[in-house]
C-alpha cells in the first residue's frame, strides 16, 4: 500500500524582532531558540527522539553567524539519524520545500518520523541594506537589477495590471490587509495584532505604487519546527493529525518575467500545481475549508486565490472586500494573519503556514478556529509565482 504522510506536531516562536545587533551586549543565539522548538514540537507530536530519522532545515540567512547550522544543531541535540540531514533553499519557496522534502523522506521509507524546521533572522539588518541582497534574487542581476527592480516591485506591477484589467479598486485590495490584521489579532504567533481600518491602509505612505506600507510584508524574524510521520505512526499516537493528501509543483520555465508575453497575473504555475494537488486528493477547490497562502503582498493573495480556484478570476479583491475570505466567510484565507500581519521571515514563512494548518486541522486554533475545518491548503512560491508548490491536507480526528 502507498505510504502516506501526516503532520503530527508543530512549534514556533512569535514572528517579530528577535535578531540582536552585532554590538548588543546580550545576543540572541539561533540554536538556543531552535533546540527548544524541536523539543516542544516532538512533545506536541507524541513521538520520541529515537523515532526521528530525517531532518530538513531551511537555509539560515547569511547574517546567522553559526555556519552549517543544521549539523551544528544535530550536535546540540545528539540526534543520530539514518535518513537524511540537509538544508534546502529555494528563495520564497524554501520552507515549503523543507516540508516537501521531509514528506519525501517518509514516502521513500527512509524515516518514520521527519522534521521540517528552520530559523530566519534578519531584522537587525536595515531594509535598505537587506535589499542590496534581495534585489539580486528576482530578475536578471545584470539586465533588471541595474534598473533598480526590487522583489516587491514585481508584485506592485501585478497590482497595477490587476486594477487596470479588472476594474478592481484600491479599497478592495486594501481590504485584504484589514482582513488579515483581524485574523492576526487572534493569533499569538502574529507580528502585528492591533486591528486596522481600511482608511488607515489606504492612507499609508507608498512603498511600491500602488501598494502602501500595509499592503507589503513587514520585516521580522521567526523559527518553527514541524513533525511529520508515516500514517501508521500518526495513528499510533492516538492524537488528531493532518494527512497530506495532495501535492502539486510547477515551474513555468521563466524567471520573474517571460520575454514571450503572457498573462502575467494568471499565476499559471499556481493554477497547474493546485490542479494536480486537488486531483491527488480527489477533491475540487470548492471543498477547501481554509487556505494558508504564500502571499507577500495583498495583491498576491488575491491572484493566488483566483489561480487556485477559490474565487473566480477578477473577483479576488472584491471577495476580500465583501468578507468572503474572512474568518466566518465562505472560504477563509490566511487565518494566521498572512504575510502582511502574521509576518514574513521569508525562509521560514511557509513553516508558519503549515503551523496554522496543523492548528486548524487539529481543531486547536482557538478564537480563529474555522468551524469543522476538514480540508486545508498551503502554497509556496518563488519569483512572481513563476514556480508554485501546493499541498492539500485533510484533518483526521
Amino acid at each position, binding site marked *: 500500500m502507498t505510504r502516506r504522510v501526516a503532520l503530527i506536531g508543530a512549534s514556533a516562536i512569535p514572528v517579530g524582532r528577535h535578531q540582536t545587533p552585532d554590538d548588543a551586549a546580550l545576543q540572541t543565539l539561533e540554536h538556543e531558540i531552535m533546540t527548544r522548538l524541536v523539543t516542544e514540537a516532538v512533545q506536541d507530536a507524541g513521538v520520541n527522539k529515537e523515532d526521528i530519522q530525517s531532518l530538513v532545515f531551511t537555509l539560515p540567512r547569511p547574517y546567522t553567524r553559526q555556519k552549517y547550522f543544521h549539523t551544528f544543531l544535530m550536535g546540540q541535540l545528539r540526534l543520530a539519524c539514518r535518513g537524511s540531514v540537509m538544508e534546502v533553499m529555494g528563495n520564497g519557496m524554501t520552507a515549503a520545500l523543507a516540508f516537501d522534502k521531509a514528506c519525501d523522506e517518509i514516502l521513500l521509507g527512509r524515516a518514520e518520523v521527519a522534521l521540517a524546521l528552520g530559523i530566519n533572522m534578519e531584522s537587525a539588518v536595515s*531594509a*535598505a*541594506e537587506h*535589499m*542590496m541582497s*534581495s*534585489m539580486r534574487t528576482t*530578475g*536578471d*542581476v*545584470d*539586465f*533588471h*537589477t*541595474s*534598473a*533598480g*527592480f*526590487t522583489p516587491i*516591485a514585481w508584485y*506592485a*506591477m*501585478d*497590482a*497595477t*495590471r490587476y486594477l*487596470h*484589467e479588472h476594474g478592481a479598486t484600491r479599497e478592495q485590495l486594501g481590504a485584504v490587509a484589514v482582513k488579515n490584521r483581524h485574523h492576526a489579532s487572534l493569533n499569538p504567533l502574529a507580528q502585528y495584532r492591533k486591528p486596522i481600518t481600511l482608511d488607515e491602509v489606504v492612507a499609508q*505612505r*507608498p*512603498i*511600491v*505604487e*500602488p*501598494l502602501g506600507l500595509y499592503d507589503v510584508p513587514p520585516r521580522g524574524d521567526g523559527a518553527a519546527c514541524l513533525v511529520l510521520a508515516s500514517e501508521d505512526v500518526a495513528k499510533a499516537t492516538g492524537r488528531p493529525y493532518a494527512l497530506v493528501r495532495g501535492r502539486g509543483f510547477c515551474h513555468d520555465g521563466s524567471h*520573474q*518575467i*517571460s*520575454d*514571450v*508575453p*503572457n498573462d*502575467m497575473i494568471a499565476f499559471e504555475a499556481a493554477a497547474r500545481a493546485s490542479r494536480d494537488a486537488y486531483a491527488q486528493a480527489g477533491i475540487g477547490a470548492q471543498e477547501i475549508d481554509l487556505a494558508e497562502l504564500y502571499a507577500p503582498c495583498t495583491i498576491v493573495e488575491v491572484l493566488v486565490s483566483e489561480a487556485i480556484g477559490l474565487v473566480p478570476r477578477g473577483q479576488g479583491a472584491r471577495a476580500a472586500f465583501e468578507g468572503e475570505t474572512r474568518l466566518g466567510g465562505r472560504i477563509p484565507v490566511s487565518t494566521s494573519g498572512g504575510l502582511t500581519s502574521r509576518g514574513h521571515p521569508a525562509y521560514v514563512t511557509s513553516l508558519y503556514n503549515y503551523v496554522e494548518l496543523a492548528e486548524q486541522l487539529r481543531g486547536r486554533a482557538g478564537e480563529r478556529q474555522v468551524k469543522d475545518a476538514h480540508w486545508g491548503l498551503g502554497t509556496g512560491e518563488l519569483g512572481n509565482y513563476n514556480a508554485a508548490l501546493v499541498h492539500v491536507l485533510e484533518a483526521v480526528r
Partner: protein
Amino acid sequence: MSDNTRLPCLPVAGTRAYPPRHSAFTAVFWNALAQGLWQTTRCGACGHATFPPKPVCPHCWSTDMRWAPLGARGRLYSWTRIHAAPAVFAAEAPYAVGIVDLDDGLRLACRLLDTEHTTWTPGMPVEMVVLTYEDGPLFAARPI
C-alpha cells in the same frame, strides 16, 4: 547594415548605481547600446528572438545565435514607482520601472523615464531610449 535600430541617447549626470557586468558575449550588447544601437539575439535554427540576449536559445537550445535589431516601440504592460529602494538606489528614489511589450513581440522590464507630469497607464505607447551615464549606458522607456 541599414536595418539597425538607433535609439535616442539621453545624457545622465553621474554613474550607474548598480552597473551590469560584461561578459565577452554581453559586452557586444552594452557596447552597441552605448552607441545607441538596440539589438538582441535571434536564433538561426528556430527563428525566435530573446531578451535579454543569450548565447544559447532558450526555445530550441541551439547555439546558432545571431545579433538582430530590436524594434524601438511598444506598449506599457504594467509599471510601479519604487519609493523604498535598496541602499545604492536610495538617492534616485522614488523612481518608476515598468514592463514593456515591444511591437515585435518581446516583453522586457526596464526603468521608465519619469517626470512629475507623466501619467503612466497600462497599454500606453512607449519608445525605448538609452540613458547615457558617465560610466556607460542603460536602456529605458518613455511615453511617445
